[in-house]
């Protein structure tokens, strides 16, 4: 065994990056073991992936599409819209008819390489669902407990927002502002602000506003001089090119790849660390097992497989690394798989259970006038007023993300239809232009309750080419979520399209197109996709009997093991989970620093 570290972090994504930063700033020696390749950290590679986006015509295999397939550390692909290599060589194994529809990326920087950047805080009632609505479970933390960590997370990610808009649900300290001003709202947003802002909808006997507000995003905007004690915030440029990415320039490709890196990715945090040489990062190192001392229950070392060539998983060296504290900082599914493979942290039998995502549903139509979509970041505003309310006793809450990208991917369908009708020339140009400039689309994102049956397991029959366990998934939606989906389409979208005079073009074709799956509820069919918001597989709790970690994310069963990430979330609420993940990483780092004192 080589050098002993104060902390070993498994996973070089957003959790690992923030924890490495905070621990090293506290004077600790840190080793990050990343299963994937260094990849996008090298600017030359990053340009290569951008070129692949072009030469593959945009969005094939979204969102993992432009990033290289790695046989040694495979990433999942959305089951019906995978990229060709993962089609031949799938990673997830499904036990249920319904598939888990989200992916993640195993590469240094993790899934923040292709996330949307939306950085909403969870609402206070998300933390106490059982107490307030008799649904789901309570967290061992309150919103107020996590609030300081949220502020630090907003600094680490570099969030742009208008705090006044965010006060709608959340409490913020007096005088707090976000690091940067909100991104300018789009023409599409202004259309909805003009048409539905003061309108209402009735859900389960109560009236709610259809309130459109700007959303916080981890995307560089104009720094707010009021931020912080000194003089504002310095936007972090692109990794490897300090002239790029200081402002979002509207490339309209946040997913799968921001060409200038104006959007945060964990690479930005990691780059800062490697520049200063405080943290050791070993890529192409797949952790396959935690080695447990049976007497003390401590993790004595992690065992990992180091490979040279991603295409030759068989050729790897088995190595070990030892540390005082071991931190699992991978994706919720990978963390759970590794714990199960190691027989670790599972006295509660909760490891891998309570897998949640945000089922995602689109509604779309033509606005009565031009709103000029297909420009700017994916989304700059949302209809956020239904993220909380009494109706949560009955059905799921949801938020509605207003798309700035029209019916994305749509030019091809429109073109084909027009050309089939033998329309060409100026008529084609103007008809296409007229249709595309009036396209509006809303993405509804639904809460899902924790359930024992939605889970990750492992099975000796299913291993990847390196011999590591592949995640075996069981997944579905319950009536609580389905009720929310029904309310969103039949009540909320109906009202919105009425008030905004939208020609409703929404239809859910059968069979569901690639990336979607069919759902039936109360005689209506819907096509649902995943959001990539993978949470819940190693939840925190008050008691060791029904949770995997305590409120500081230390495993109940092992004195020196922290399991950190979106897997700690007890409920999913309606916030895109990365900001909460970052806040949890901040909280865990503080706890570890205290412990190591």
């Amino acid at each position, binding site marked *: 065994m080589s050098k002993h570290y104060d902390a070993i972090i498994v996973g070089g994504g957003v959790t690992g990056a923030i924890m490495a930063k905070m621990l090293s700033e506290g004077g600790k020696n840190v080793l990050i073991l990343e299963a994937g390749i260094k990849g996008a950290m090298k600017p030359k590679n990053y340009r290569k992936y*951008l*070129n692949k*986006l*072009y*030469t*593959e*015509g*945009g*969005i094939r295999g979204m969102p993992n599409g432009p990033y290289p397939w790695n046989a040694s550390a495979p990433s999942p692909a959305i089951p019906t819209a995978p990229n060709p290599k993962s089609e031949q060589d799938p990673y997830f194994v499904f036990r249920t008819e319904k598939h888990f529809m989200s992916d993640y990326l195993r590469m240094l920087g993790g899934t923040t390489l292709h996330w949307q950047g939306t950085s909403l805080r969870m609402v206070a009632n998300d933390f106490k669902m059982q107490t307030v609505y008799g649904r789901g479970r309570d967290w061992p933390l309150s919103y107020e407990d996590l609030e300081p960590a949220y502020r630090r997370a907003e600094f680490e990610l570099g969030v742009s927002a208008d705090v006044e808009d965010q006060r709608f649900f959340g409490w913020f300290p007096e005088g707090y502002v976000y690091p940067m001003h909100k*991104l*300018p*709202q*789009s*023409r599409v*947003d*202004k259309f909805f602000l003009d048409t539905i802002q003061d309108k209402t909808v009735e859900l389960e006997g109560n009236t709610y506003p259809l309130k459109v507000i700007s959303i916080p995003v981890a995307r560089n*905007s104009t720094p707010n001089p009021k931020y912080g004690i000194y003089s504002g915030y310095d936007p972090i440029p692109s990794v490897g090119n300090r002239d790029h990415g200081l*402002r*979002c*320039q*509207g*490339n*309209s*490709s946040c997913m799968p*790849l921001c*060409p*200038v890196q104006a959007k945060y990715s964990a690479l930005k945090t990691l780059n800062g660390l490697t520049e200063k040489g405080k943290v050791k990062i070993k890529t192409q190192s797949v952790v396959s097992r935690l080695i447990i001392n049976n007497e003390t229950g401590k993790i004595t070392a992690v065992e990992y497989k180091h490979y040279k060539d991603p295409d030759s998983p068989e050729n790897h060296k088995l190595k070990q690394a030892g540390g005082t504290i071991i931190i699992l900082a991978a994706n919720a599914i990978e963390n759970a798989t590794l714990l199960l493979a190691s027989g670790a942290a599972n006295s509660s039998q909760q490891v891998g259970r309570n897998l949640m995502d945000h089922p995602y549903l689109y509604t779309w139509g033509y606005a009565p006038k*031009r709103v*000029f*979509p*297909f*420009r*700017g*970041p994916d989304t*700059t505003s949302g209809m956020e007023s239904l993220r909380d309310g009494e109706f949560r006793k009955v059905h799921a809450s949801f938020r509605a993300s207003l798309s*700035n*990208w*029209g019916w*994305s991917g749509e*030019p*091809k369908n*429109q*073109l*084909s239809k027009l*050309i089939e009708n*033998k329309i*060409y*020339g*100026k*008529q*084609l*140009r*103007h008809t*296409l*232009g007229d249709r*595309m*400039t009036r396209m509006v689309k809303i993405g509804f994102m639904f809460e899902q309750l924790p359930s024992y049956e939605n889970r990750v397991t492992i099975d000796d029959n299913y291993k990847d080419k390196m011999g590591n366990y592949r995640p075996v998934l069981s997944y579905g939606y319950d009536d609580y979520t389905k009720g929310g989906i029904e309310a969103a389409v039949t009540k909320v979208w109906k009202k919105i399209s009425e008030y905004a005079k939208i020609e409703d073009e929404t239809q859910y074709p059968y069979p569901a197109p690639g990336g979607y799956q069919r759902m039936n509820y109360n005689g209506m069919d819907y096509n649902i996709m995943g959001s990539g918001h993978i949470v819940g597989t190693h939840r925190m709790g008050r008691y060791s009997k029904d949770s995997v970690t305590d409120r500081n994310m230390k495993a109940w069963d092992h004195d020196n093991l922290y399991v950190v990430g979106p897997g700690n979330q007890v409920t999913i609420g309606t916030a895109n989970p990365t900001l909460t993940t970052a806040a949890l990483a901040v909280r865990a780092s503080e706890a570890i620093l205290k412990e190591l004192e």
Partner: protein
Amino acid sequence: MDENHHIFLNLSSELTGYSVIDLEGTGLVYSYQKLVEDEIGKHVATFLYDTTKAVFSHNTTKARDRFMRVDIVASPTLWPICKGIIMLWYYGQWTSMSLVWYRYYARVPPSPNLTPDKTVVPSAAAYTQQLSYKAAGAHPPGAHPTGFGSWGLDPVFGDFITTK
């Protein structure tokens, strides 16, 4: 510039509704001409150019439009090629001609390397220069960004310049 190139450019302009200046500005005319010629063969290419030249020889717009409809749009040999040319310019992708087209409408043997109905993106520039987004006053995702905050205003180029 040889005559066929001139004809290909003008046909592209007629099919897309964009001026020859717009199309030349993409830098893609030569590569697209070659792609199409390679795909349909010399024999059919000559037929396409001769027919197009005859259509364009009419003096009035009305007559040109009429003969365009009769001789090209209604032709089962030429219209599938034109559809491909429109998709190439507007969407940056080319779908190979079908075997049915080769056998019955072109009456030429398909090239030995052909995969029928296969769609390719001929180059990165084909993606970044596609016209479909331009027609909407926008830009292809990931290329030609419109600048910080521009999405909050009406487009300042393309077909939608307003004086309001």
